[in-house]
């Protein structure tokens, strides 16, 4: 497995703007690797250090300590940025330009030729749902539209590594769906994606891996599946019965749902045992399995 982004013991300390003797530790001893071809969701509370980490990866700011490698080079390496797409946290762009001019400018800076730009600009605008707004100035765009044009500039040059800071922020449900479709298509194309988000259901829907940060320190880095499985708290069986009168005799702990019954267990062994019993007594099994907590419960509930 290749790792396009590697952080080793990275620390970022800021001086207080007014009191230079006061130091603020924004990122503390952070190490992680971003696996190639995977989508990684980057989550944490406000002020956890997500944006600072992203800025260090992009080479906008330098770490106080530690080492960062992006596509095998220093983050400040100019040439490797041809293969990187980036969406900033706040979509402030050149409002005096229209969508086409804006994409043409950023595309040309990424080395795209005039003919490439002529071909790619309409396709990219369509991909983010702005195909009818090519000649409209960004000054008249809503926040959601700016977010979309920001995503367009991040992907127009077909980068291998895409880093997005809060890509779903400010978007309505349709906009969110479109951005999720873009990230899903990047995943299908084998791109490496890192995106931060406060909307953890989106992270759960899109990510292969998650990176959880709290107060500048890593809480978890790895497979989303493993994190969710690690936090399984109970197992459940939903079943129905032809002879409803016998249910509470056979399973006194069963709970009545609207038309079915629910059994809860602490371990999978208990659940398996109950399953055999249910089948032997001719009950109909509707659903059985582990109850996974939502990522939101794990991250914001402090269960990591």
């Amino acid at each position, binding site marked *: 497995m290749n790792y396009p982004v590697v952080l080793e013991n990275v620390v970022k300390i800021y001086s207080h703007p007014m009191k230079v003797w006061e130091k603020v530790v924004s990122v503390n001893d952070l190490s992680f690797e971003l696996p190639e071809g995977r989508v990684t969701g980057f989550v944490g509370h406000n002020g956890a250090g997500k944006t600072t980490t992203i800025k260090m990866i992009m080479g906008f700011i*330098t770490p106080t300590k530690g080492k960062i490698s992006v596509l095998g080079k220093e983050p400040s390496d100019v040439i490797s940025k041809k293969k990187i797409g*980036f969406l900033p946290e706040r979509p402030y762009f*050149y409002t*005096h*330009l229209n969508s086409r*001019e804006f994409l043409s*400018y950023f595309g040309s*800076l990424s080395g795209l030729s005039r003919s490439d730009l002529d071909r790619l600009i309409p396709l990219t605008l369509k991909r983010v749902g702005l195909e009818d707004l090519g000649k409209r100035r960004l000054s008249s765009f809503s926040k959601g539209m700016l977010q979309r044009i920001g995503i367009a500039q991040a992907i127009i040059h077909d980068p291998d590594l895409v880093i997005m800071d809060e890509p779903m922020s400010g978007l309505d449900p349709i906009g969110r769906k479109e951005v999720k479709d873009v990230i899903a298509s990047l995943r299908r194309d084998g791109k490496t994606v890192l995106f931060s988000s406060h909307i953890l259901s989106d992270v759960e829907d899109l990510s292969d891996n998650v990176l959880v940060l709290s107060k500048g320190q890593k809480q978890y880095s790895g497979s989303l599946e493993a994190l969710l499985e690690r936090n399984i708290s109970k197992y459940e069986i939903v079943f129905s019965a032809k002879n409803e009168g016998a249910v509470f005799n056979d399973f006194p702990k069963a709970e009545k749902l609207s038309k079915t019954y629910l059994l809860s267990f602490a371990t999978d062994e208990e659940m398996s045992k109950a399953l055999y019993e249910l089948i032997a007594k001719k009950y109909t099994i509707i659903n059985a399995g582990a109850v996974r907590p939502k990522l939101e419960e794990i991250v914001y509930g402090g269960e990591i």
Partner: protein
Amino acid sequence: MKNIFSVARYTYLEMVRNKILYILLFFSFFIIGLGIIITQMTMGNPQDIISDIGLGTTEIFLTVTSVFIGVSLVRRELTLKTLHPLFARPVSRAEYMLGKFFGIEITLFILTLVMSVIFMILLTFYGGFSRFFTFIPAIYTIFIQTSMVTAVAVFCSTLAEPAVAAMLSVSFYIIGTISYNLVHFITKNTSESVVKLVTTVRYILPDFHYFNIKNNLVYGTGIDKISLTSATFYSLAWIVILLALAVVFFNKKEIN
């Protein structure tokens, strides 16, 4: 090189679409209009007065514009965070800085042409069409002086906020304009140490005296080719030094 060209092109586009530029341009036309009224009220040669006002207004307008644009363009991008997506591209900070400078230069060149045409029309109105061509060296020196002021402003913008950077740039301009005369004034009356200090300041700061040839042309004293050539090289040398320093400071800056 391609990146410098791209940044310069879009910087020019940004300024052409900036309303404040047109307000400044309108204000300079207003001053020229005022000049016409003054011409009616004074005893001197109308062509000399129009030439004085035309060249003076061109110089002030271009200097104010270059300071205003020079200090705000880079700083504004830092404040608005528009630099993040830009530096996520394969663009070095030096390329960006040079692109910005050349973008401003293209705009100033076009503004110089516009102001010159207005000046030419005015002179023609007062029967001095052929005289306009004798002022081309003065317009040229105003342009290269403005280029140097732009480099000063861009350099100051990497050190301080726009208001402070503007004050610094204007201070450099004022000191640079009067330092030559100051040296000649104080040599007769003041102590040697003060003379040394003022002379040193004159040599270590940009000296705009090299570009002051418009009075020679308006009142017929004339100029030589050497002074134009030396002014050009002097300006180029300062622009290279100031932009190199601006790049050094900008490279060290964290783009938060």
